[in-house]
């Protein structure tokens, strides 16, 4: 009844250098642009106790200079070549990337190799970036309503161990305690070439790029690669609830965290959870929009997603499926929770309506194609798939994998959410008018 979903078919080559660096090459000549991404297998779940926020601070330090590149020069080289750049810190990885006109590929590879060899960090630059990160936290968390809700505030309700529960942005006093020695140790331990993936996507030829990669990255000395830690925690049977008061927020909010299956060992069930979030909150035809926005009118807005930052494929187990709502004070959290439970029960018991799975899959597949049209989006996806799953080709395969997810699997996902002990965080509005 449903036709096959269109899939991307980007050609891919994988190479591994002698020093252990994994390289993914994905040529495509649609536009004269090229994206370079480096994913390191360390995120804020791996940072040491007493140094919360260090993985993110270290990301900033990687822009402070290296052997041949002075402080703040990395951005200048990239931008003077007509490119853009950034870096971001995730639970299980840190990425650095550039998108440039294709003639600047060699420059980008040089810059990434130079800092993979070793960043050059001074006390002055460390102090400067601690101050910059503190301003980042003030602007995104402390000075605004709903700041850090729920990505910082839900994990301590959902998890018990330090890696999963702590604040990845970091505590101000712990950021201030960061030393040059900490930075050296962190780099030595986690930034080994064997702990990284280099991805090139866009307008280049594989032969030329492979030569440039060998030239710039080949002589970086191999180092020991840390063993990948397990952050596993048992799925709780009992609900856990907590609340906080946000003194800047004019209306209350609610976040519910559920554990998903492990994407590595239970991919099909994991993908059913991913599709379930679209069944629940994607657009006016979705279950919770209809129930809570259109019928009950008990929420101002509702969303659901898998993964800390809404990308289901950029971290490893354990991870959360989160439902998040902002609501008027007149609609109590318990009423909203009860309605969500009812809707999950309906999916679990009655399954999906005729055509519901097909339309949700069609929308998800076209969304994936749209993201992949951007060379940078493609490079980041290929890199994350290689780093976490060893399978960059998953980007091409996802539509086919999604078309194998059945309505029964989505119903089972909903039943699974109902069976576990969810984590509920209420945000109380300290600035209610």
């Amino acid at each position, binding site marked *: 009844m449903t036709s096959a979903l269109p899939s991307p078919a980007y050609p891919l080559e994988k190479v591994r250098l002698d020093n252990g660096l994994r390289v993914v090459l994905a040529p495509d000549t649609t*536009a*004269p*642009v090229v994206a370079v991404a480096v994913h390191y297998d360390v995120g804020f779940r791996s940072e040491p106790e007493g140094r919360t926020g260090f993985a993110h601070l270290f990301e900033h330090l990687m822009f402070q200079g290296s052997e*041949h590149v002075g*402080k*703040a020069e990395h*951005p*200048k*080289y990239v*931008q*003077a*070549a*007509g*490119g*853009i*750049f950034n870096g971001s810190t995730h639970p299980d990885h840190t990425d650095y990337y550039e*998108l440039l*006109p*294709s*003639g*600047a590929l*060699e*420059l980008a*590879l*040089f810059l990434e190799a130079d800092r993979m060899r070793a960043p050059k960090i001074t006390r002055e630059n460390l102090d*400067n970036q*601690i101050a*910059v990160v*503190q*301003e*980042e936290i*003030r*602007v995104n968390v*402390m*000075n605004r*309503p709903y700041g850090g809700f729920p990505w910082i505030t839900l994990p301590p309700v959902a998890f018990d161990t330090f890696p999963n529960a702590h604040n990845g942005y970091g505590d101000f006093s712990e950021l201030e305690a960061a030393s040059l020695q900490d930075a050296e140790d962190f780099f030595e331990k986690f930034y080994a070439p064997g702990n990284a993936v280099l991805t090139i996507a866009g307008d280049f030829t594989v032969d030329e790029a492979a030569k440039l990669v060998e030239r710039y990255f080949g002589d970086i000395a191999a180092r020991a690669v840390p063993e990948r830690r397990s952050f596993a925690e048992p799925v709780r049977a009992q609900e856990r609830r907590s609340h906080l008061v946000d003194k800047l*927020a*004019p*209306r209350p909010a609610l976040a519910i965290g559920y554990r998903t299956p492990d994407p590595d060992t239970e991919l099909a069930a994991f993908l059913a959870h991913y599709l379930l979030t679209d069944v629940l909150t*994607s*657009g*006016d*035809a*979705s279950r919770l929009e209809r129930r809570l926005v*259109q019928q009950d*009118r008990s929420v*101002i*807005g509702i969303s659901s997603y898998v993964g800390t930052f809404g990308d289901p494929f950029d971290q490893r187990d354990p991870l959360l499926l989160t439902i998040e709502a*902002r609501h*008027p004070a007149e609609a109590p959290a318990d009423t909203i929770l009860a309605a969500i439970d009812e809707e999950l029960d309906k999916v679990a018991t009655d399954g999906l309506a005729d055509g519901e799975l097909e*339309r949700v899959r*069609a*929308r998800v597949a*076209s969304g994936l*194609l*749209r993201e*992949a*049209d*951007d060379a940078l989006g493609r490079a980041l996806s290929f890199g994350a798939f290689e780093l976490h799953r060893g399978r960059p080709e998953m980007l091409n395969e996802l539509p086919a994998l999604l078309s194998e997810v059945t309505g029964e699997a989505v119903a089972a996902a909903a039943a699974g959410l109902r069976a576990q002990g969810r984590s509920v965080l209420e945000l109380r509005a300290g*600035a209610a008018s």
Partner: protein
Amino acid sequence: MTITAERASVIPAVRPTLPAELPAVVERTLPTGLRVLVVERTSVPLVELRLRIPFTGLGAEYAARAELLAETIFTGTARRDRVEIATAVQALGGALSTGVDADRLAIVGSALATNLNPLLAILAEVLTEPTYPDDEFSGERDRIVEDATMALSQPAVIAREALLGRMFPGHPYGSAVAQPAVLAGVSVAAVRDLHGARISPRGAILTLVGDVDPAAALDAVEAALGGWTGGEPEKMPAVPALATGPVIIVDRPGAVQTNIRLGGVALDRTEPGYPAQRLANTIFGGYFSSRLVDNIREDKGYTYSPRSSVDHYLAGSRFSVAADVATDVTGPALLEILYELGRMAVLAPSAGELEAARQYSVGTMALGSATAAGLASTLSGLAGAGIGVEYLRDHPAALTKVTAEEVLAVSGELLAPRRLVTVLVGDAAKITPAVAALNEVSSAG
């Protein structure tokens, strides 16, 4: 930062990138006035859709009606209810959403390219047979009132509203968020009337970019939307002349940061000085490699994301500066911003700064057109300002000719501190003394 010759020797040279070919725009204007632009782009099997409808109107009540129309236009047609519309769009692998500002109402969409015709059919239904069901409207209105209340609690929104109000008093550009109390008073009848009067193909532009045959796509648009008719759009009144004056402080007691905002007049894209202005903005604060970032972030650590921008609107373009800084360095940060603006206004940039800004501007224009979605948005925005696709070729060419003297001249006119207005949102008791040492201060309402 100067890059030494010794270093330059190990840094790989950038090979010049041949610019992409100018997209082939196939165009037709329907007898009803709707202008249709189509570009074939086969990189992904999708089609991107952008519809801009002129939506100028005066007064806070108008802005609130426009906002509610945009939020409820998909809640019903003569043939389908809200859920049926959403279900149909999703089944096409599609999405449709709306946004409105003082210039235009925009409908943004995409779908699998093979589904262009049904997507256009739904669009036509929404444009020509909307019902705005009473009950859907009142529910959405209550929700939007709450939504606006939450938006207005965000310091960045408070700061933007304060700056716009300061720059454009009494003009539709003077606010970008409809006030909750005004939204609450809008009736469904007023929104239906607004749709009848203003959702018109006169002056509207539909842009399609994707894996479609242009001739067939134009025919499909004509078949689906040929029957959509309507009257002439309103003319936007001229913006009031910018009256400079004291720094305005909006008090936010207990704020741990101050939102610093400066604003002034900018040139439109069609004016001869525009290429120089673009580079002046870039050098000052338009990219990470700018003086503003070097100074108050990378040197002093006062802020995370300081920036400046030039934004284009139909009745006039604007230059703005934004930095969110720790409360206790508000005075020092404002001093440095004024210093950097003054330096732009009285001294020419170095050759290296000019060249970097030029390459960045040319390169990032190309990056912006590299995806179907990016190209559709770019072309739609240009067409709305009466600018054709050749801008994507001619503007980079013009950027290559800009001299340091031209950047200085345009900066003296547009970036000079005396040409700008300043608003601060922060803890007034803590920040006023230092700010008052630099400029006259007045508190907001």
